[in-house]
């Protein structure tokens, strides 16, 4: 199969301008679904903003914010079936919230508490992947593995623009294409990898161009448009489920927040460009769309926000109330059949720590 280079691809949009010019609707998404998307966006936004506050208060450790990227996560998750796999990077650490993982759990991950590590089988959300791009082959393998078992499960993997430079991305994408694995490769092109702009990451005209080399189709979508992301991913998921193999989705956005709590983007990003991105952020755009459609009032918006805030307050309280993990957790779970030395190590450690 030959695939056209994606610079010729239009940028998919559903939400129009602030005055409503260009607003479209997406088949299959009724009013309730639209409002559910809104609640999800607010939940994610609130989680993210509160985490930054908690970090400043010393209640959460280093944290990688996803402010402005909520539409990519919410739109994509919505386009999947519950049985479909999600493989997040650290940038999508809280995507589990959309699958029922408690906010307290995710907070605990960033607080370095053992209860922040969840069971991926339960939610079909894989563990947060810290080393860039290394989870792309995992997602390819899971998708392929489901297909080998005759199931119609799809996998979706999130990664950034920077990730496309890694060998692991390449090997995972190629495997997926060769095995016709039902995989959606969802690239959040926020145009920065810490301080490195995407123009220093690749000489390709677009990241979607990468797909050509794998013989898979690509689509480019406005990443601040939750409906466009939903539509693009839904199409990719249908292709995958129908046995047509992987699709590369490039979601274009801009990193309007620091890389993480330890980062100082003033040193390398033009603040005006950031301000512009903040003005076009995804939640506001979607709220405008809903208001124009007569679906959202100030009261509803306010109550959704209040609900999310209350949930976060509860979540941090629950996280903080949890007793610290027992020292045995240093040794547990690393092996199904552990080397005998570990029991000796634990006993010795307990003795030295005076029994705790």
């Amino acid at each position, binding site marked *: 199969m030959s695939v056209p280079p994606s610079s010729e691809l239009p940028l998919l949009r559903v939400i129009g301008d602030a005055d409503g010019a260009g607003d479209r609707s997406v088949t299959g998404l009724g009013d309730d679904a639209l409002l559910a998307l809104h609640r999800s966006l607010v939940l994610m936004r609130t989680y993210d903003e509160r985490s930054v506050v908690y970090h400043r208060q010393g209640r959460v450790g280093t944290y990688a914010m996803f402010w402005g990227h909520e539409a990519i996560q919410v739109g994509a998750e919505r386009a999947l079936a519950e049985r479909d*796999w999600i493989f997040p990077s650290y940038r999508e650490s809280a995507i589990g919230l959309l699958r029922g993982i408690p906010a307290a759990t995710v907070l605990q991950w960033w607080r370095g508490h*053992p209860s922040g*590590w*969840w*069971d*991926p*089988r*339960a939610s079909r959300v*894989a*563990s947060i992947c810290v*080393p860039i791009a*290394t*989870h*792309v*082959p*995992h*997602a*390819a*393998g*899971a*998708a*392929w*593995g*489901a297909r*080998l*078992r005759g*199931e119609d*499960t799809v*996998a979706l993997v999130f990664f950034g623009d920077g990730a496309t430079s890694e*060998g*692991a991305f390449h*090997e*995972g994408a*190629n*495997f997926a294409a*060769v*095995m016709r694995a039902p995989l959606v490769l969802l690239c959040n092109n926020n145009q920065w990898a810490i301080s490195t702009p995407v123009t220093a990451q690749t000489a390709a005209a677009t990241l979607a161009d990468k797909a050509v080399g794998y013989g898979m189709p690509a689509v480019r979508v406005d990443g601040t448009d939750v409906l466009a992301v939903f539509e693009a991913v839904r199409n990719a998921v249908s292709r995958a489920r129908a046995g047509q193999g992987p699709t590369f989705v490039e979601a274009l956005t801009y990193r309007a927040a620091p890389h993480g709590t330890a980062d100082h983007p003033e040193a390398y990003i033009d603040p005006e460009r950031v301000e512009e991105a903040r003005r076009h952020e995804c939640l506001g755009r979607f709220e405008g769309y809903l208001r124009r459609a007569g679906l959202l009032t100030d009261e509803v918006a306010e109550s959704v926000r209040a609900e999310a805030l209350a949930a976060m307050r509860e979540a941090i309280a629950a996280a903080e109330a949890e007793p610290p993990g027992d020292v045995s957790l240093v040794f*547990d*779970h*690393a*092996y*199904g*059949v552990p*080397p*005998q*030395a570990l029991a000796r190590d634990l006993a010795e450690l307990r003795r030295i720590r005076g029994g705790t």
Partner: protein
Amino acid sequence: MSVTAEQVRELLLVQAVNDALHAELARDPSVLVMGEDVGRAGGVFRATAGLLERFGPDRCIDTPLSEAGILGTAVGLCMEGWRPVCEMQYDAFSYPSLDQLITHVGRYRWRTRGAMEFPITIRMPYGGGVRAPELHDDSPETYYAHAPGIKVAVPSTPADAKGLLAAAIRDPDPVVVLEPKLVYRTARGPVPEGEHVVPLGRARVAREGGDATLVAWGAMVPLCERAAAALAGEASVGVLDLRTLKPLDEQAILAAATATGRVVVVQEAPRTCGIASEVAALLAERAILDLQGPVLRVTGYDVPYPYWQLEDAYMPSVARVTDAVRQLLAF
């Protein structure tokens, strides 16, 4: 684990590997074999011969030339309930997959707090002495044994090649099985038919001996047996075949030290941070009063594996091993 075999066949070591794969794929439908050239060609050493024909292309998979892709997709395959057996074509060609091994294969179970298993087996021919071009001769056990969450097994006999591989495949944890290619087609011995499992973590006394103990694994075991035989007139020298390098069979190593007090560890890999050092450290920590002399190491050197016309000088030899034993006896 039980050994249910009734009959025994004489097999070469590489045939025993093949036999194990046939047996395990037949036993457990979630086991699959993947790697470069494992299917159509049956593996460059024929270790996977017949699997494609017998189990089909979904259970014996020719992959792209992509070691990180092989090991990385294996992680995902586990999430969907598969037990992948990954072949790396040669020792040094496994290095592109080290990142997946260190950051994911050994840590993912822990990351799920034990909720998910990653029963990946990684098998590869390893070691020198085969007159091969560069990078077909490495002994990479240190890279694997040091990685948290990873187990390492190394057979030296056909029976153990079958039994340790079966154990690795059945183990809930990721296990690297290093197959000594030097003796793939020279080590010949009885192998139980059907299912045959040699538990991980237990060394094997390859030769009894009361004056000194040679500790070895893989192709160094028959070498040590030859060295011990060469010393027969001078001393009674035993050979302990570690079989599993992680976890080490500490009891067996300490028992040897207690019995003979004189230990020489023999490895092909470069010396620094080798398993030989680990064994010596174990003895220095837990057997210091039993030792009748230093713990000596006969190893490869901290240099690249050489041009093959010189490889016999690099590899531990009977002469180097017997020299070490004599030094120890004279200590």
